[in-house]
């Protein structure tokens, strides 16, 4: 089956799109040995700066570089405006959904979402029921994954409302591009994104009713795959980077252990999952959390960003209902479309999925990071049959989507430049207002034909440019 891919740089006739013309001219004027030399420089700089991630399942915990491609992904401003409005609309609806779910549950009573879908979901936290949060904000930081189909339409692939990562690569990629190719930034107006940490700190401060709350970033530790990002953000914001053992709870307040004694903590930007936060309330084996944290949280003496229990809203089994949420809470039509989704828990949809496995992408509803999924067109017959057995055994744990023809962007590969598939993750911040910096993380699947962009599966990144329309 021949698929049509949307190429970000060239139109169907092979002509360069207007917003890429300045770059394209520069690219053809720059000798290839200069480009190759700059690419080596980039690798060296990333390596020296230790901008790395750790791969799970790698016994040695080796730190790896995420491959960085020097051809940017570029989006015209007018197009970005739509994406931006769409992301804001979506995150607002999701926050309204979470506030409703943990209070009156109007949306369940109205029959828009079947209650068992939500209440039996692993991400649903009964401990959050009836708890009032400042500004009713649950997902202070959200990452919305977008892809483009053959005709260039943007689709939301998933919402990440727990601890979305990757923003440090967005910022480092831009720094790298400006260092390597300053002339490009002089030739064209590219919207700046470097103020993200500033907006993030504002968002975190506004998440608390206090005037000047003490904000910290909480990491599972230096062996976590995203430790670089945790350290990066705490440094950029100028706040402490804490681990569970640095915190303790006394009289329903959280304190950190400092060289000058105990100091109260008001806002925790936590980068570990709900289950690890408090061994008294959740996973008793967790050595990463803080005993009693939940009691301080429930007493209203602490803000967690994101809140506990946001996972219920970004679960893949809830995802099909997000357009309905937008209509229900905002009384608006969704600006960004969902990818059509078959829910394997429904017998008729399951039989459709089973009959079309080679064409579909099947994902675990709870999974993330590209682990435990089947990409039908790329899988062998044996892999498909193995997956079929797993799917039949537990259909409720899976959803299926058509294999999207992800858009492509020219990318440096071994023998020159070739198109590779990409996605886009803008980061949406919800504080006093909902907003995002113009841009996001563009991930690129470096293997030819691959549609999996996750860094754990060999994906790389590109700088993302929002450029003034030409």
């Amino acid at each position, binding site marked *: 089956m021949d698929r049509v891919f949307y190429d970000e740089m060239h139109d169907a006739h092979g002509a360069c799109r207007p917003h890429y013309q300045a770059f394209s001219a520069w690219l053809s004027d720059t000798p290839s040995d200069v480009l190759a030399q700059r690419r080596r420089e980039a690798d060296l700089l990333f390596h020296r*700066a*230790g901008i790395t991630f750790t791969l799970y399942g790698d016994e040695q915990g080796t730190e790896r570089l995420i491959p960085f491609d020097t051809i940017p992904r570029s989006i015209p401003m007018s197009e970005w405006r739509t994406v931006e409005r769409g992301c804001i609309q979506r995150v607002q609806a999701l926050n309204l959904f979470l506030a409703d779910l943990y209070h009156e549950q109007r949306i369940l009573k109205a029959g828009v979402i079947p209650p068992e879908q939500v209440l039996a979901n692993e991400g649903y936290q009964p401990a959050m029921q009836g708890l009032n949060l400042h500004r009713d904000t649950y997902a202070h930081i959200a990452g919305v994954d977008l892809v483009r189909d053959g005709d260039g339409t943007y689709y939301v692939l998933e919402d990440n409302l727990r601890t979305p990562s990757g923003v440090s690569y967005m910022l480092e990629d831009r720094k790298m591009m400006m260092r390597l190719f300053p002339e490009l930034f002089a030739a064209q107006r590219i919207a700046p994104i470097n103020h993200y940490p500033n907006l993030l700190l504002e968002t975190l401060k506004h998440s608390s009713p206090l005037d000047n709350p003490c904000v910290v970033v909480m990491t599972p530790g230096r062996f976590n795959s995203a430790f670089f990002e945790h350290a990066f953000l705490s440094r950029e914001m100028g706040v402490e*980077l804490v*681990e569970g053992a*640095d915190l303790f709870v006394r009289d329903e307040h959280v304190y950190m252990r*400092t*060289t000058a004694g105990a100091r109260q903590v008001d806002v925790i930007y936590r980068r570990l999952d709900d289950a690890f936060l408090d061994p008294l309330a959740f996973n008793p084996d967790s050595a990463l959390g803080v005993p009693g944290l939940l009691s301080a949280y429930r007493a209203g003496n602490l803000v967690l960003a994101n809140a506990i229990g946001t996972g219920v809203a970004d679960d893949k089994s809830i995802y099909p209902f997000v357009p309905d949420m937008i209509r229900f809470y905002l009384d608006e039509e969704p600006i960004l479309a969902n990818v059509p989704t078959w829910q394997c828990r429904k017998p008729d949809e399951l039989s459709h999925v089973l009959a079309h496995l080679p064409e579909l992408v099947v994902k675990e509803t709870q999974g993330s990071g590209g682990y435990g999924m089947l990409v039908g067109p790329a899988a062998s017959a044996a892999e498909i049959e193995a997956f079929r057995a797993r799917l039949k055994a537990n259909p409720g744990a899976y959803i299926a989507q058509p294999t999207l023809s992800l858009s492509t962007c020219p990318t440096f590969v071994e023998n020159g430049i070739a198109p590779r598939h990409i996605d886009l993750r803008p980061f949406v911040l919800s504080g006093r207002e909902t907003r995002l910096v113009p841009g996001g993380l563009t991930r690129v699947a470096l293997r030819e034909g691959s549609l999996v962009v996750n860094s754990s599966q060999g994906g790389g990144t590109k700088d993302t440019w929002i450029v003034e329309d030409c």
Partner: protein
Amino acid sequence: MLSRTAADLYWMSRYLERAENMARMLDVSYSLSLMPQDGRGDGLDELAMPLLITGTLDHYLACHGQLNAERMLHFFALDEGNSASLFNCLRLARSNAHAVRGRITSDMWENINAAWLEMRGIAEQGLGRYGISRFCEWVKERSHLFRGATVGTIMRSDAYRFIRLGTFIERADNTLRLLDARHELLGEESENLDDRSARAYYQWSALLRALSSFEAFAEIYRGSPRTAKVAELLLLRADVPRSLRACLVELQQILASLPGENGRPAQRLASELDAGLRYTSIDEVLEIGLHDWITAYVEQIGRLGSAIHSSYLEAA
């Protein structure tokens, strides 16, 4: 500042300082081992000294059986299985820096990370190809670079103070041990405080060079190095940056400038040690016996280290 962060900063600089001092020691031992020796004449005693000082000689013998020049050098410099090797000192320093990379400047982090990446490259190549003296020079140079990046870029906050605490605690301890070991190796000759033998000259001047104090010695004493003068320089002179006294002056000042009430025990101990040294003369030291005096002082430095731990690094 978080106690854990302070501990990571403190140990980062301790391990780096240790690597530097061990490299200085190794360089001295190596060059002395090349000199004509009394008795056996193979220089193995000299090469075994770094292992003796770091308490890893037994571990070495368990792994390799007999003394062998090349194996001892490798064991001390690059062996991953030797927890006190230069390789591991740098690995631990870098690992501590990694944990607090958000609290040090990117210049510092990139500097120590680059050093570690290069160290791994050297370990793959092996010392034979790199050359032991060149390797020791390299370690020293990386330590200088990191200190330069630290002094030149980091804010003068508690982070800076804990980094410096680690440096001076480690340096005080290492200077004492190096002096003691060299003194022991001279044996009876060193008891003769007026010893003018060529051997004494080479031993003492090698130690002074290792501690970058040869020029200072020449300028202050204008004569050949002898036990009493070398000991005075390395223990009691406040103007020689690697001397015990200089380290204690720094330690006392840094501790006094740290905020909070919980540091009293460490502050008091540092002040006592500093005042004690200030009014000690070298004759008093030699009366007690250099080795006994140093042994007692190594314990005091250990006590100060523990006090810093309980006051700040394991606080609250």
